[in-house]
C-alpha cells in the first residue's frame, strides 16, 4: 500500500542545507495501522509530506498503492500537525468537512450524509454550524479528523495530531482514531514523538533515529486488537514493548552524540 525505499530528503535554501531524512525504507500493508515514532525535528513531517506528494524526494522512491508518487495521490488524506490552521476560519465546521467532497463532485445529498456521519463519528454532530475558532483545540482536531473520514480515503496519514491537547482529551482521541480505523478499514500511518502513544495505537511501530534520520527498527506490536487505556497500558506486554522502543531511541541518541553530524 505504502512503500518507501532508500528515501532521502535534503532541504536546500538560503545557503543552508538540512538533511531531514537520510535513508528511510519501510512499507505499510493495506489496512494496517502503523506508527512512525521519532524525536522532535527528526523529519516526521517531512516524511508525511513526501508520502502525500506535497514535496519531492532528493533521492529514493515513494509508492502509494503501487504507483510512484509525483503529486498528491488519489484516495490519500492527511491530518496536519497544525490542525487548527488546516481548517478554514471563514467556513463553518460543516462546510469545512464538506469542501473536499465538493471538490470530488460528490452529489449534494450524499455529501450531507457523509458530513453528518463523519461528524457524528467524532462526536461533533452538535458543532456542525459553529466556526472552527469557536471550538477548543481538541474539537478542532476532531473536525480535521472528521474531514479526513468524510473524504473516505484508502490511506490516512496523521501528523502528531495530539501533541497540543491535554492528557484526557488525548486518550479519548487515541481511542477515537483506533475505532475510526477499525470501522472504516483504511491504511493508517500515524506519526508521533510519543513512544507510549505509538505502542498503544499501532500494529507496527517504525522507529526513526534523530537526525541524520534512518529507520532504527520496524517492530511488530503483538497486543490484542481491542485496546483499552487502562488495561492495555498496564499489561506486561505493553510495558515490555514500550521499554524496548524507549531503549532503541535512547541508544540512537547516544550514538548520534558521538558521531559528529556532517
Amino acid at each position, binding site marked *: 500500500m505504502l512503500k518507501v525505499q532508500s528515501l532521502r530528503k535534503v532541504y536546500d535554501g538560503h545557503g543552508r542545507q538540512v538533511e531531514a531524512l537520510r535513508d528511510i525504507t519501510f512499507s505499510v500493508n493495506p489496512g494496517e495501522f502503523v506508527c512512525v515514532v521519532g524525536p522532535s525535528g527528526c523529519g516526521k513531517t517531512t516524511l508525511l*509530506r513526501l508520502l502525500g506528494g506535497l514535496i519531492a524526494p532528493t533521492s529514493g522512491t515513494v509508492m502509494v498503492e503501487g504507483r510512484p508518487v509525483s503529486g498528491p495521490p488519489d484516495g490519500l488524506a*492527511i491530518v*496536519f500537525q497544525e490542525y487548527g490552521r*488546516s481548517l*478554514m476560519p*471563514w467556513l463553518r465546521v460543516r462546510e469545512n468537512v464538506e469542501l*473536499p467532497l465538493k471538490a470530488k463532485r460528490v452529489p449534494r445529498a450524499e455529501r450531507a450524509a457523509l458530513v453528518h456521519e463523519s461528524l457524528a463519528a467524532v462526536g461533533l454532530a452538535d458543532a456542525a454550524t459553529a*466556526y472552527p475558532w469557536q471550538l477548543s483545540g481538541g474539537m478542532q482536531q476532531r473536525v480535521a479528523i472528521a474531514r479526513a473520514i468524510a473524504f473516505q480515503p484508502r490511506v490516512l496519514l496523521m501528523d502528531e495530531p495530539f501533541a497540543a491537547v491535554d492528557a484526557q482529551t488525548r486518550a479519548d482521541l487515541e481511542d477515537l482514531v483506533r475505532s475510526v480505523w477499525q470501522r472504516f478499514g483504511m491504511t493508517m500511518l500515524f506519526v508521533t514523538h510519543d513512544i507510549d502513544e505509538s505502542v498503544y495505537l499501532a500494529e507496527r511501530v517504525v522507529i526513526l533515529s534523530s537526525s541524520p534520520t534512518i529507520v532504527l527498527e520496524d517492530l511488530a506490536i503483538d497486543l490484542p486488537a481491542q485496546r483499552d487505556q487502562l488495561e492495555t497500558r498496564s499489561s506486561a506486554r505493553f510495558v515490555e514493548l514500550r521499554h524496548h522502543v524507549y531503549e532503541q531511541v535512547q541508544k540512537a541518541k547516544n550514538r548520534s552524540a558521538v558521531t559528529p553530524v556532517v
Partner: protein
Amino acid sequence: MKAVITGLRRVVALVGLPIVLLLVWWFASADSHTAAMPPLKRILKVFPDTWFGERLTDDVLPSLIRLTEGYCAALVIGIVAGVAIGSSRTVRAFVEPVLEFLRAIPPPALVPILFLIAGIGDTTKILVIIAGCVWPILLNTVEGVRGVDPVLVDTCLTYRVSGLLRLRTFVLRSASPQIMTGARQALSVGIILMVISELKASTDGLGYTFEQFQTRFQYPQMWSGVLVLGLIGVVLSLLFRFVESRVLAWHRGQRAAERTSL
C-alpha cells in the same frame, strides 16, 4: 432599559462631534463678512434650493453613477490582476517594477492626456477614477493572496480543492480582509477623483457645479456643495461598513476569539 442607554450612547457617539463642530462653525461664522466665508446660516438657507431641484438628477446623480462605474471596474480589475500577480512569483517578478512606475503617477495628471485619447465624455472621467482606485485594491489583493496560509495550501492540494472552487472558497476568502482594506482606501480616492475629473471640460457633475459656483462667486452655494460631498462620503462609508461587516464577520469573530484565548 440598558439597551436603551447603550442605544442612546451609540447615537451620541455617532452624531455628537458633528453637532459640536456644526455649532462651532455656526457661531464662528455668524458675523463673517468675508465673501468667500459666508455664515453657516446662509449656507444652510441656500442648501435646499441649490440641491433638491434639478441639480440632484442632473449633477449629483451623474457623478455618483460615474463613481460607481469606475469604482466597480477598479474592483474587478484590481482583484483579478491582484490574484494573478499574487499567485505567481514569476508574474510578480515581471510586473512589479512596472507597477511601481504606474502607481507613482498621480491620476489627476492623467486627466489632460486622457482627454486627448478618450475625448471629454464620461469615459475619461471613469478612466480617471479607475486609474486612482485600482492601486489600493490591486496592491492589497496581492498582499492578501501572497499571505495565504501554507498549511491551507497543502490542505487544498491534499484534498484536491482546485480551480474555481479553490479560488472562491480559499484564495479570495483568505485575502478578503486585505481586499476590503484596499477597497476602503479606494473609496475615498474615488470620491476625490470623481470631483477632480469634472472640474475641467465638463457639462455636469458635482465638480462641474463647484466650478460654476466659483466662477459666479456663489460662495454660499459652493459651501453647501462641500456639505453635500461630506454627506455622500458618510453615506458611502456607512454602506461600506455594512458590506464589510457581512463579508468579514468570520474575521472579526476569529480575532476576538484569539484575543480572549491569549
